[in-house]
C-alpha cells in the first residue's frame, strides 16, 4: 500500500515549506523591528556582552589551536614543494577567507546560539513571554530583538579576533618551531594578502552572524513550551545553524571568488 507513504511524504514536504515560510516571515518581522531596536541600545549592549564577550575565551583558544595546526600542516605540505616561506600566505588566506568566519560561526552557534535558544525557550515554557503580551509589551521588540542584534554585532568581531590569533598561532609554530624565516613569513604574507581578502572574511562573518542569530531566536521563540521542547529547540539551533553556515559558505565563496 503506497498511499500512506505518499501522504507522509506530502505532509513532510508541506511541513518543511511551512517552517521555511515561518522563518521568512519572522526574518521580515525582525528586519522591520531593527531600526527601532537600535534606538534602545543599552539592551543590545547587554546582549553583545552575553553572546560576544562570553564567547571570547573559547574563540581565542580555538583560534590559537587552529592556527597552530595550520602552521604544522601547512609547513609539512609546503616543504614538499620547497616553498615553506609561503606558509604565512597560506595560513593568513586560509584563516581570513575560510576558517576564521566558518569555525567562529560554528562555535558561536554552539556557545551563544544555544544559550539564546534555551533562554527564550525557557521564557516561553514559564509563560514569561505570555505575561509580557498581557502587559502589552511586545516580546519580539523587548526580548528577541536585542538578542538578535547582539549576536549580529558580535560575530564579525569574534571572527576577526579568531583570524588574528590564528595567524599568531601559525607564526608561533612556523617561525619559532619550524624555523621558517620570520621576515619572509610576514613579507610574503603581506605582499600576497589584499584588502579584499580581509573584506571577504568580514562579509562572510556578518552573513553568518545574521543567520546564526536568526535561527537561535526563531527556534527559542517558537519552541514547544515543555522541558523536552526547550531541549529540542537548542539541538535544532545547533544542527540548523551548522548546516546553513556551511551551505552559505559555499555560496558566498562562489559568489565572491
Amino acid at each position, binding site marked *: 500500500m503506497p498511499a500512506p507513504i505518499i501522504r507522509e511524504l506530502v505532509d513532510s514536504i508541506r511541513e518543511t515549506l511551512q517552517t521555511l515560510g515561518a522563518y521568512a516571515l519572522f526574518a521580515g518581522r525582525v528586519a522591520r523591528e531593527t531600526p527601532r531596536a537600535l534606538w534602545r541600545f543599552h539592551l543590545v*549592549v*547587554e546582549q*553583545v*556582552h552575553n553572546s*560576544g*564577550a562570553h564567547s*571570547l575565551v573559547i574563540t581565542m583558544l580555538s583560534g590559537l589551536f587552529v592556527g597552530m595546526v595550520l602552521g604544522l600542516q601547512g609547513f609539512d605540505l609546503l616543504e614538499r*614543494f*620547497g*616553498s615553506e*616561506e609561503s606558509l604565512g600566505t597560506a595560513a*593568513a588566506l586560509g584563516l*581570513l577567507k575560510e576558517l576564521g568566519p566558518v569555525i567562529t560561526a560554528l562555535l558561536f552557534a554552539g556557545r551563544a546560539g544555544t544559550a539564546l535558544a534555551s533562554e527564550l525557550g525557557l521564557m516561553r515554557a514559564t509563560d514569561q513571554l505570555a505575561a509580557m503580551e498581557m502587559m502589552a509589551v511586545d516580546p519580539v521588540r523587548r526580548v528577541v530583538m536585542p538578542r538578535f542584534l547582539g549576536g549580529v554585532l*558580535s560575530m*564579525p*568581531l*569574534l571572527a*576577526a*579576533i579568531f*583570524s*588574528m590569533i590564528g*595567524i599568531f598561532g601559525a607564526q608561533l609554530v612556523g617561525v619559532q618551531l619550524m624555523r621558517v*624565516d620570520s*621576515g*619572509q613569513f*610576514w*613579507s*610574503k*604574507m*603581506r*605582499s600576497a*594578502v*589584499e*584588502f579584499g*581578502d*580581509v573584506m571577504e*572574511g*568580514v562579509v562572510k562573518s556578518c552573513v553568518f552572524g545574521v543567520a546564526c542569530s536568526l535561527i537561535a531566536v526563531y527556534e527559542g521563540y517558537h519552541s514547544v513550551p515543555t522541558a523536552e521542547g526547550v531541549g529540542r529547540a537548542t539541538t535544532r539551533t545547533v544542527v540548523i545553524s551548522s548546516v546553513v553556515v556551511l551551505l552559505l559558505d559555499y555560496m558566498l565563496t562562489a559568489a565572491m571568488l
Partner: protein
Amino acid sequence: MRQTRTIELGTGLFVLLGFSALFFLVTQITNREFGLGDGGYQLLAAFEQVGGLKAGAPVSMSGVTIGRVEGIEYDFDEYKARVKMRIDSRFDRIPDDSDAGIFTAGLLGGQYIGIGPGGSETFLAEGDQMQFTQSAIVLENLISKFLFSKAADQQADPPAEESTP
C-alpha cells in the same frame, strides 16, 4: 548599577579587542608598511634591477641573516632602484668596498640580498651607500640570451653536426 557597569566594561573591552583585531588584519596583514624596530644602522644600495625583492626580505652574509630590507624606491637621479637596508648593530664591520647582490633562495623561493665582504680597512656606517652592486637575474632575459646565442651558433656553422665543443 554596579552590575551594569561591569557589563559595560566587559562589552567595551570585547568591542575594543574586536576592532583592534580588524585594524590589525587590515593594516598589518595586507601590504602596508610595518616597523622592523629601530635598532641597527641603515645602508643604501642602488640596483639596476631588483626583480621580485620585497621590503622585509633578509640581508645576509655567507648565508647568515644580518639585517632586513627596509624599503625600495626609485631614484630618478641615477635611474636606478634604491634599496634601504637595516643592518643589526652587531654586524658593524662590513668593509666599505663590499658588494651587494640580489639572489633567489631556491628555485621558487623569495629573493634576498647577499653581501660579499671586500678587503678594505674602513667599515660601512649609518647612511652609507654601497659602491658595488649586482642586479637580480631576470629569468626571461637569461632564457632569451641563451636562445639567441644558440641561434647565433647554428648560423655560424651551417654543417648540421652536433659535436661543437
